[in-house]
């Protein structure tokens, strides 16, 4: 029973981190119509940058401030050089971001090396929770993810830039005609997507291993969350990520992690086949 609780809790924590990352994937898809195969690698770049910050300054907390800013800058550069020239060609976007994924992975391997590293959590205490000693860092990671997701939704609904983003998503032509600089909105959106994935990397760094292939595992999970939640449905993405990870965590306590992953993949194909627009959509669009 304790194992079920522990893995279920880990599932929820992991799900919140995935939700943060998948949200980035979802806004990039929703606004730019780009299927971003490199999104898992954005997360991976976040973990590696966090490792670099920790390695040079010895302070992991700095990474929470520095890495998302670096991620935003890298995202803006990538949008300008790779994404803008292929705007509105979804099939090409898959190929281009696949190329991007190769570049990011190989650049990290060239500078960081191929051996996975482990980061020690900045908080090492545990607290008693539901009859088990639970790591405080994981609780902090969950709270930080919730805070970041909350901030993003506030940004989207309360600021001028957020309103522009929603307007461009709704109708790019009219938005441009109204004087909204759509191209700059695209660039900021992509950069925010990168920043969110890299922040997810900083949060998850002490929980997983730091490795140039870390993104390969996480990408299908993000896509699952985005699809089950409904493409472009941001709240659905968050809910789906947490549910999926919880489901996988609890399943993993009964069988083994691989079978649990197969289970959640089967669940996802069932959702795709029965309700392709996600389980949270009222009706088909």
């Amino acid at each position, binding site marked *: 029973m304790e194992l079920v609780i522990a893995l279920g809790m880990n599932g929820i924590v992991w799900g919140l981190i995935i939700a943060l990352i998948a949200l980035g994937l979802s806004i990039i898809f929703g606004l730019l119509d780009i299927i971003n195969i490199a999104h898992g690698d954005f997360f991976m770049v976040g973990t590696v940058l966090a490792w670099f910050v920790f390695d040079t300054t010895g302070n992991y907390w700095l990474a929470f401030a520095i890495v998302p800013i670096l991620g935003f800058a890298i995202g803006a550069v990538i949008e300008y050089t790779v994404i803008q020239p292929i705007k509105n060609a979804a099939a090409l976007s898959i190929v281009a971001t696949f190329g991007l994924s190769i570049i990011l992975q190989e650049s990290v391997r060239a500078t960081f090396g191929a051996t996975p590293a482990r980061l020690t959590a900045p908080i090492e205490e545990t607290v008693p929770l539901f009859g088990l000693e639970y790591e405080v860092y994981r609780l902090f990671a969950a709270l930080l993810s919730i805070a970041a997701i909350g901030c993003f939704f506030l940004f989207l609904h309360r600021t001028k830039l957020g309103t522009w983003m929603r307007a461009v998503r709704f109708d790019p032509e009219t938005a441009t005609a109204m004087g909204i600089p759509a191209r700059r909105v695209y660039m900021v959106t992509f950069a925010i997507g990168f920043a969110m994935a890299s922040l997810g990397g900083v949060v998850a760094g002490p929980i997983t291993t730091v490795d140039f292939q870390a993104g390969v595992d996480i990408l299908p999970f993000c896509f699952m969350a985005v699809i089950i939640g409904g493409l472009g449905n941001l709240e659905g993405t968050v809910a789906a990520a947490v549910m999926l990870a919880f489901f996988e965590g609890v399943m993993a306590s009964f069988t083994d992690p691989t*079978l649990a992953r197969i289970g959640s993949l089967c669940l996802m194909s069932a959702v795709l086949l029965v309700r392709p627009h996600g389980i949270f959509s009222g009706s088909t669009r």
Partner: protein
Amino acid sequence: MTAAAINRLGLVVVALLTLAAPWFLPLLVDGFWVDIYAEMLIWSLLAASVNLLFGYVGLLSFGQALFFGMGMYGVAIGVAKLGLGFWPAFGLGVVMATAMALVAGALAVRLTWHYFAIITVVFSLIFYFAALSWKPLTGGDDGLSFTMPPIVSIGEWELSLTDPTVQYYFIIAIVGVCYALMGVILKSPLGAAFRAVKENDHRAALIGLNVYLIRLTAFVIAGFIAGTAGALFAFFGRYASASYMFYHVSGEAVVWAIIGGAGTLLGPVVGTSLLIVLREELSHAWEHYLILVGIIVILVVIFAPKGLGGLWQALVRRIARPETPPPSTDAKGEDLP
């Protein structure tokens, strides 16, 4: 010369070079390039199966590695676990891949576009993880290796792929048959139906085509092609492994197909050859050559969205134009397709 004649001439030259490769490649570069040439042809079949679906029917499948892996495991399990001979194992691989494509396709082709691309990844991931965890049958992480059974053996005499020349010509023969088959299908009314579905599935349905059945047919044929490639690759490497079922392998096939030029029969060969030659040439010079491959992929997507096949067609049209009499003397008509 007309554009079609130039293309035909190019095809003949490539075919002759391919047949003569075991003689001139060792003289020009190195003997091991013959193997690389053979590998190129096998991988180009995987890219061709992506191209058949994406370039002709408009379905972007990111899961063709599933059928490639099924072909591999069919052969490896057939030989190593069931003790089958060469042809029965080959048959088992192809049949397993095609049957898998029928089942997966029956579900997947109900969806289109992003949903289709994603469900094909999901299907291939399910079987990737299944192959990883079902160790007694698949060997898990280590894969499954086997000793090569002979193709035919009559008394003392036997023909086997352990002879590199036999292996090379066997691969060429099978790959050639697959391309010929695709060529015939694409020229047939079925091929026309494929294109109709790609252009506009609503109109295709209105003129009485069964869109679901046409997409499923294409999916099964593509699964058959990918499975054949997988079976050949299992014989080529004498093993099967789950890593070939991972979505990254599918992704590479998609990249090769689009770089080569989706919607042209030989585009996948061009794309696959280019990237494998790059890999072989650059990997010796620079350990992190993949960065360059990624950059090339992005540059081709940006500057040649129709792929290298599209560039070639444009080049041929430019060469051919002065020698073809214009259909009308109207100068304005020149820019029309």
